[in-house]
């Protein structure tokens, strides 16, 4: 990612400068500085409580940072409501617990935001939904309710729902850690396909096989700070910090 020619200038799609976040007195993010380029796939790992979720949630302003700057797709995150709405339209998010809307069908889960926020005509939204369901491999489930689907299918619907807003960036917060092993595979498959389509992806995940294969960079958090940021090969074979080695030894 660093050897683009001058004509093919890299575009920094996410820029974080010295970001701090407190929950009450608890200092959850302690000066996070990083940059993500368009099309890059960044996998975030780190021990529990290290601030991975907090960081990823500040990027679409589900959490508010208190110091430092975050610029997403050219828009600075401030308290300006219009900016926040613009960012959220541009950034899709997938949660650990799926968070599908249980009272709506799969189809309606996907078309809701495009019709209400983007004012897309409903027949068009329906077509987009079907297309996305094909893409994540479950077009036959369109008329079911979320509770009637397996966990893996639900998570794939959640991905389709986020994609329906045609975001430039996708955030994943441990998308597979609530799933049984055989379902993890089907979700990772969809994510892999997404990564290959030049989507910018920020994913908290401890699926190291996936990270090794798909990520451009692996970022490790500890105690609210980034302690390592390397391409997968170097990260696994030649980490610079003791803490990374220690962490890897624990989860491998």
């Amino acid at each position, binding site marked *: 990612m660093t050897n683009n020619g001058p004509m093919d200038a890299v575009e920094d799609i996410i820029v974080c400068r010295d970001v701090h976040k407190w929950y009450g007195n608890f200092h959850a993010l302690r000066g996070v500085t990083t940059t993500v380029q368009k099309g890059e796939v960044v996998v975030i790992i780190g021990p529990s409580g290290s601030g991975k979720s907090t960081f990823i949630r500040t990027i*679409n302003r*589900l959490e508010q940072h208190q110091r430092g700057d975050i610029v997403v797709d050219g828009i600075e995150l401030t308290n300006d409501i219009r900016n926040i*709405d613009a960012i*959220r*339209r541009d*950034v*899709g*998010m997938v*949660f650990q*617990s799926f*968070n*599908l*809307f*249980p*009272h*709506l*069908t799969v189809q309606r889960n996907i078309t*809701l*935001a495009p019709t*209400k*926020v983007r004012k897309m005509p409903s027949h068009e939204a329906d077509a987009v939904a079907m297309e996305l369901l094909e893409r994540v491999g479950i077009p036959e489930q369109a008329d079911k*309710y*979320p*509770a*009637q689907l397996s966990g893996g299918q639900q998570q794939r619907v*959640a991905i389709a*729902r*986020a994609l329906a*807003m045609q975001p430039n960036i996708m955030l994943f917060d441990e998308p597979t850690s609530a799933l049984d092993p055989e379902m993890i595979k089907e979700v990772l498959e969809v994510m892999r396909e997404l990564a290959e389509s030049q989507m910018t992806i920020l994913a908290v995940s401890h699926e190291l096989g996936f990270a090794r294969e798909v990520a451009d960079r692996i970022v490790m958090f500890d105690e609210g700070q980034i302690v390592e940021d390397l391409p997968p090969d170097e990260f696994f074979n030649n980490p610079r910090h003791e803490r990374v080695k220690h962490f890897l030894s624990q989860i491998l």
Partner: protein
Amino acid sequence: MSTITEPTTTQLPPPRSETGLVGWLRANLFSSGFNTVLTVVVGALAGWALWFGLLWLFVDSDFTVIKTLGGLLLIGQYNSEQACGEARNCFWRPQVALLLVTLMLGMSWAVAGGGLTKRIAILVTVVVALFAFLPYSLERMGWDVRLLLVANVPALLLGWALARYTALGTWRWVAILAVVAFLLTLVLLRGLPGVPGLQPVSLLYWGGLMLNLLLAVAGIVVSFPIGIALALGRRSRLPVVKLLCVVFIEVFRGVPLITLLFMSQVLVPLAFPENFPLDSLLRAAIIITLFSAAYTAENIRGGLQALHPGQAEAARALGLPGWQTTLLISLPQAIRNVIPAIVGQFIALFKDTSLVYIIGMLDIVELSRKFATSHVENGMLPYLDDVHEVFIFLAVVFWIFCFGMSYVSGRIERHLGVGER
């Protein structure tokens, strides 16, 4: 060491002692010495009560008093001389209101496409129409009254056809038309000055079951949206809105309804000029509605609080603005989760309508009580022993309506269970 069993497809029947009546009795009623004693004692008490109950019901009771009171219990003094004039020709007005109800039932049946709605619609209509063939007369029950009762059948079919074959066949239209029908009912009952046949009938004379039902329907329909607004207001981030809602809710929940009704009659005339335009019945209706709204608000707030925070988060992450998140994601789920509590509140409201006796209105309960005391006091009426029958009849009437609501709510819950978390 374990015993390894070969996989088998043959199913064994359950042990004999756990099936059938004998098994059930043994497991549930006679499982120990103490339980056996308990079963025998309770059984004896129940049998004794049942015996005397049935004895009274089939030997001593005389329900002719209900027949005589009939029209009075249904509409109170609405068709009396003071209310309606010498001709006493007002009975058709509540009857036409009833036709509007069956019309709406017919439309609902067509829109719902059968099932429970269909069964309720047909049951109600048939029961109402059968009244036309009772061998005795309700209040001045001439052929016109009987005809209007039978007319409920064509009204039902007309409603069904309307919804089936015109553009009116959607729930949205049914809801709109139901509100129109209700307003029409009020106009019809109140009358229009100068229109022949529609001479105004003072609210003072509205009574009987009709009054209970009108108050309940208006109260339910109006209190529900107010309750939602209060629940949202109480969760608002604007301190003033929040404070107002909290104060409103806590005042109405903290004071007995009967006290509020007294206050509406005693305090309002003090605070406002004598010719305050709100009739005392209207004031009572407003109080009952607001009282119910305060409870509904708390039920809905409970439902909102119980929602997984991830729901609103997911909606916000998709770019839905706050009000749409509330309207499309939070509220529908919250309301669905508290349907039993809300219906419980509606049932309470229906029963509370009998408190309008405080302001001197003769609802179905107060009419019965008046009847009982008046004939005890001066022996005017010939049914000296018939008070029991009247109150038992009242209990049955209230039970039918309340159980009906509760049954329908159960069915709705099960129906909505499809998309449960």
